[in-house]
């Protein structure tokens, strides 16, 4: 197995006796978009800080671009662009000057920096606001400037902490599109953290679900679904009137059906191992039944996420009861 561009092994960080990150192991391949998903306070930002060498891990190994970020943070920071979640700029300076300052901190010669800055500002759609002071930028504009700021050093990896936080849906779409574009055109590896599942789902090659400092599951959306809902991968929701016992029995006897949940007198959830919506529809039509709704429930990350939290909460309450 080839070594990934980001390698994390048994990473642990303990703040005041409470583990913020607990035994995290993760490998991210070059050219991948990896989404780190988790609720607030799960340890996403702490992990990112350790990747950049801004915080020292309590134990564990970290390698970014083959470099140990705890020992050589400067070398890592030369290759990695980071967009913080509480992004801020020098408000009295124009967008261009903010970028040029970052470039000068990276030791990029002035002419080259200017060239890159103009190009990047055009690319992120800030061509009209190049000389506007960043104090007057809107949240969405700042986020785009942030992306340009990250890219000016031509990084191999970019780490985005909540890149879609506080932006309107159209802005989110544009930013995500931009990230995807960068990934495809320049082959930049992207690690992004978020708690907005839909958004991440759209562009991530793989996601990791991160709760209370632990990585619970990892993989692409489909494999996550499989991991989680082994036998009941698909739920078909049916609303019909009347639902006779005969019909239900026949449904139950289908090979693919594992279980039927009764939600009311006229609606049921059929848990199946495969997508057999047409088969079920035909079967129902054989009976004298008014079918008002038949739909397949897709497991998005929301469900995955929710399932984890439901599980966690019930576990917690169980413990309390004991």
């Amino acid at each position: 197995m080839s070594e990934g561009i980001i390698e994390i092994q048994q990473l642990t960080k303990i703040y005041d006796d409470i583990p913020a990150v607990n035994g995290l192991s993760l490998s991210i391949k070059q050219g991948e978009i990896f989404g780190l998903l988790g609720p607030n306070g799960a340890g996403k930002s702490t992990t990112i800080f350790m990747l950049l060498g801004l915080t020292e891990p309590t134990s564990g190994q970290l390698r970014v671009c083959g470099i140990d970020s705890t020992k050589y943070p400067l070398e890592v920071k030369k290759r990695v662009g980071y967009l913080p979640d509480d992004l801020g700029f020098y408000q009295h300076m124009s967008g261009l000057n903010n970028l040029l300052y970052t470039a000068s901190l990276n030791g990029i010669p002035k002419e080259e920096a200017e060239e890159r800055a103009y190009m990047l500002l055009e690319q992120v759609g800030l061509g009209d606001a190049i000389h506007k002071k960043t104090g007057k930028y809107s949240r969405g504009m700042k986020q785009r400037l942030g992306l340009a700021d990250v890219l000016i050093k031509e990084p191999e990896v970019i780490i985005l902490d909540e890149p879609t936080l506080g932006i309107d849906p159209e802005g989110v779409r544009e930013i995500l599109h931009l990230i995807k574009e960068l990934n495809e055109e320049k082959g930049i590896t992207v690690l992004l953290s978020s708690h907005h599942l839909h958004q991440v789902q759209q562009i991530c090659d793989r996601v990791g679900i991160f709760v209370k400092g632990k990585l619970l599951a990892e993989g692409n959306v489909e494999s996550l679904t499989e991991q989680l809902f082994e036998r009941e991968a698909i739920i078909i929701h049916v609303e019909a009137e009347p639902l006779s016992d005969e019909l239900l029995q026949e449904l139950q006897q289908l090979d693919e059906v594992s279980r039927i949940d009764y939600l009311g007198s006229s609606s049921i959830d059929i848990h199946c191992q495969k997508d057999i919506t047409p088969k079920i529809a035909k079967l129902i039509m054989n009976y004298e039944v008014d079918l008002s709704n038949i739909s397949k429930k897709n497991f998005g990350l929301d469900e995955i996420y929710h399932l984890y939290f439901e599980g966690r909460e019930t576990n917690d309450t169980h413990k309390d009861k004991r």
Partner: protein
Amino acid sequence: MILTKIKDKINFRKNNDELDKNYKEQSIFKAIVQKEFTDYIRSFRIIILLVIIGLTCLGSLYTAITTIQDALEQSDEAKEIAKDSYLFLKLFTTSDGTLPSFLTFVTLLGPLLGIALGFDAINSERNKGTLTRLMAQPIPRDYVINAKFVAALLINVMLIFALGFLVMAFGILLIGLPITLEEFIRIVFFLLLCIVYIAFWLNLGILFSVRFKQAATSALSGIAVWLFFSVFYNMIINVISKNYVNPENTTTMEEFLNKQETILTISRLSPSYLFSESTTTLLSPEVRTLGPYTMEQTVGALAGPLPLGQSLLLVWPQLTGLIAATLICFAIAYYWFIRQEIRTN
């Protein structure tokens, strides 16, 4: 033979790379200093302070010059005496009572300038969210705090030297007396002392800016310390000395002197006191000692100014004390900043 040559070449290359790296790092450091310096010059806070300091100093210079001119015009003899009595230094210390002297203004406004330069150095970056962005760049962490200090110090040096030389130039133009070399050196040392004094307050400001998350808290703490040392500390010393050095309780001369010394030592804990002591010594060569002395000790001494070397020797402990205080403040700020978590929440 060939091998050694190749080896040499490799070594040479290595050195070159290192030089290149050093050069690059220097240019990065310079970039931060440049940016901070521009920020200072453009901020209204600093512009207002600079204007106030400039105006008050020129005002005090004007009163000093008119006083001296009046005295000179009274007789020709006065002019002769003036030549020998370090008249030029009087420009910085004399006033006619309407406006305080240059020295008083610097003592009063210098700390304010220092605090204004330093109080939001780190915490404003933190609050604006620029610190994380800055730290994600390939720069050593201490560059940030060092560069901020250097930029503020540059402002400080430029202001003080500009003002000092302006006063000298006006003095030469308006009084018409040439400046002697010794006077010039004394003034330069005085200006350096001012810079160290302001640098102390600057570092105190930076220290508070690292410690306190809110800029307002750090500014107020800085001003509180400044008020304490410039106003209340003297009062406290007075209260203590009234009881402690009461002639009724002291029996021998020696005891009296000892007590006087103790009080002096306590006062010297205040940077303002150190500053005023050393500046008066530098600007008034007649000052021969800074502690109490008896009549016996003055018997046989010729009244006359101290040579420059002796004056410097006299203020040496004060000067080193001030520099030490400055360094201690900076060291603590540096240590805290390096150890601090960068994340905001």
